[in-house]
């Protein structure tokens, strides 16, 4: 954490300057010559539909920053990434850029299946702007990083998809980029390789390289980025602190979910509602910081207009990065609930809770036995835990070191 914060303090020169960029996609339904001739002229216009993927996006990226682009599907984040990469031209506005760029958009897309791994490394390296000698120089590193080993002289079409992606990633990160564009590709490969990728990205950050990444994993974004841009329907909604942007994104997601539920025919006024969630600890004033070992009581209130027998009270606790730290529900605990009609409150006591230092958010859900969420309040309430600072991470347990005597 500390390293990222210090990186943010001293940003370098502007690497990408984006001014008033808009992108319109025209969706055509007539794609063959015949259809187009038939629908020539005015009729043709009915077969076209405009879709604004980006609207008036203005921002700049400074060297050394790691920027996360988040937003739901179709919000324009991948388009923005491709506009930065010069792969898609904006309909209006300007983009300028400097330095060497490497794009991990569709990994290994430039690979030719009939060529060997070795030949593809040269081809791909050249695509990313390396000279032949430079590739030869780094070739061993690339192979070592990819972990492909002897398969390097095998045709790429015989590779497993994991090997394919690993080799492509290895080439891209060895091109000495000033600016690295990453689109959802960190979720590839086995866990060990993912760890390797993340380590590589961290060392890139240390070396002052700029990274722009698109990810659906909010936890990853919170962990890696020092700035997050939230896009919604092609517009920048939030551009700033990761936690702030992620919180805003959660709100948008929740609005959409509610809207979707509403459009499914369920009346907008819900029959089942979560009214509130509250945290209390015996012996501590409301708002006072909690300590490890406290018995945390979470009181949630539910309401149902028609009455429901198979209902479940579920509580989930997330940390600041959006990672799930704790979850409990009446069905998992085997606790029998009475029929819910009107308003009822449920107390959940988490005995001897040992959360680590930090802020935690409580999500309260009302579900049925089939696991359907009838209503949720994400971040219904929050609490902060203070420890003596003896350990890090989401779990607190008192550490004690002892040097063993010499054998």
């Amino acid at each position, binding site marked *: 954490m500390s390293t990222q914060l210090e990186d943010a303090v001293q940003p370098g*020169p502007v690497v990408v300057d984006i001014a008033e960029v808009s992108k319109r*996609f025209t969706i055509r339904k007539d794609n063959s010559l015949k259809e187009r001739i038939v629908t020539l002229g005015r009729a043709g216009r009915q077969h076209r539909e405009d879709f604004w993927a980006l609207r008036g996006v203005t921002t700049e990226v400074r060297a050394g920053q790691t920027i996360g682009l988040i937003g739901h599907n179709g919000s324009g984040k991948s388009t923005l990434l491709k506009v930065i990469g*010069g792969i898609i031209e904006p309909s209006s506005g300007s983009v300028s850029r400097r330095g060497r760029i490497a794009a991990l958009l569709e990994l290994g897309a430039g690979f030719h299946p009939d060529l060997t791994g070795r030949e593809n490394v040269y081809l791909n390296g050249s695509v990313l702007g390396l000279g032949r000698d430079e590739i030869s120089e780094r070739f061993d590193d690339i192979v070592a990083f990819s972990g492909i080993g002897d398969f390097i002289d095998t045709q790429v079409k015989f590779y497993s998809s994991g090997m394919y992606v690993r080799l492509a990633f290895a080439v891209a990160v060895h091109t000495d980029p000033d600016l690295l564009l990453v689109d959802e590709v960190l979720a590839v490969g086995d866990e060990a390789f993912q760890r390797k990728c993340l380590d590589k990205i961290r060392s890139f950050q240390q070396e002052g390289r700029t990274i722009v990444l698109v990810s659906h994993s909010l936890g990853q974004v919170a962990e890696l980025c020092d700035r997050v841009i939230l896009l919604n329907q092609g517009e920048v909604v939030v551009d700033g602190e990761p936690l702030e942007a992620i919180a805003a994104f959660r709100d948008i997601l929740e609005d959409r979910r509610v809207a979707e539920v509403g459009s499914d025919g369920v009346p907008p006024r819900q029959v089942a509602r979560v009214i509130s969630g509250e945290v209390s600890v015996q012996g501590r004033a409301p708002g006072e910081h909690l300590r490890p070992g406290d018995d945390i009581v979470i009181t949630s209130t539910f309401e149902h207009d028609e009455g429901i027998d198979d209902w479940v009270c579920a509580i989930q606790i997330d940390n600041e990065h959006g990672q799930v730290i704790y979850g409990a529900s009446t069905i998992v605990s085997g606790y029998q609930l009475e029929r819910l009609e009107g308003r009822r409150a449920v107390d959940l006591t988490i005995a001897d809770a040992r959360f680590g230092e930090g802020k935690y958010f409580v999500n309260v859900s009302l579900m049925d036995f089939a696991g359907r969420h009838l209503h949720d309040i994400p971040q219904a309430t929050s609490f902060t835990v203070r420890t003596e600072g003896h350990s890090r991470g989401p779990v607190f347990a008192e550490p004690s070191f002892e040097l063993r005597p010499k054998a």
Partner: protein
Amino acid sequence: MTAALGYDRQVMSERSDAESVRLTRYAKLSETPLQSVVASRRLSGGWSSLRQIFGHREMLDLLIRRDLKARYKDSSLGFLWSLVRPLTQLLVYYVVLGQFLGAARGIPEFAIFIFTGLTIYGLLSEIIMGGTASIVGNTGLVKKVYLPREIFPLAAVGSALFNFAVQLVILIAATIVLGAFPWHAGLLYAFPSLALVLVYGTALALILSAANVYLRDIQYLVEVLTMLLMWASPIVYSWTMVRDTFGAGSVALDVYTNNPVTLAVLGFQKAFWMAGDASHFPPDLLLRMVVAFLIGLVFLFVGHTVFRRLQGDFAQAL
């Protein structure tokens, strides 16, 4: 406290290295000018994209090699296959048209005559067909990273030229075997012929490759077009036959003759087909070729402009 401190201390020692690396990078970046990413709206348009293509010549080289390597990768005869087609064509046309239909009677050294035409025409049709498919065939690269997209049709031109060179060697070997290596001043006609094919072929490859991205019908249209072009030029019959049909000096004959493909084929025949005397060729052949070449340059410029206009939306149309 200790665990946390140990971690920080390790970071601190690496810090000074990373710091200097970072500052060097920043300094280097500050010196490089910010460049507009939007290619089609750059002021110096055509010229700067030519410079960019030149800057990517190593890439062009690799792409050509890749095309050639990948084409016959898993076949045991390998690139010999690229010779099978023209040689079969030669055999069929020689036997069927030459002997059965009697075209050979009016044309001395009929085999050389046909192969000469097929060689130069093969180059054109391969440029057009390969070029048309080039952008769609490289979807992966086009969508992945920005490269001057002209590279893909140009790579198709390059690999067509390689096959052409191989065929040319066979053609020359054949002339030697048949005892008449074309060692005469007329051999120089090969160069304007080649130039004509390259200029028109490249222009068409640029336009068609871009159009094919939006309308996949183009590649089928091109198959028909190349067949038409072949029969519209004196490859398996001689120019004199057309002259006799249309009548010398007629407008139809002029239209037929001034087709750049016809001119290129005629020029190539003048270079490698020794048996034909002056009466086999139209008057002012060289002048016609020069004019066609100049028009071709304009056409190439137009083709490139069209290509640059269309390329902005490639990545999303693919």
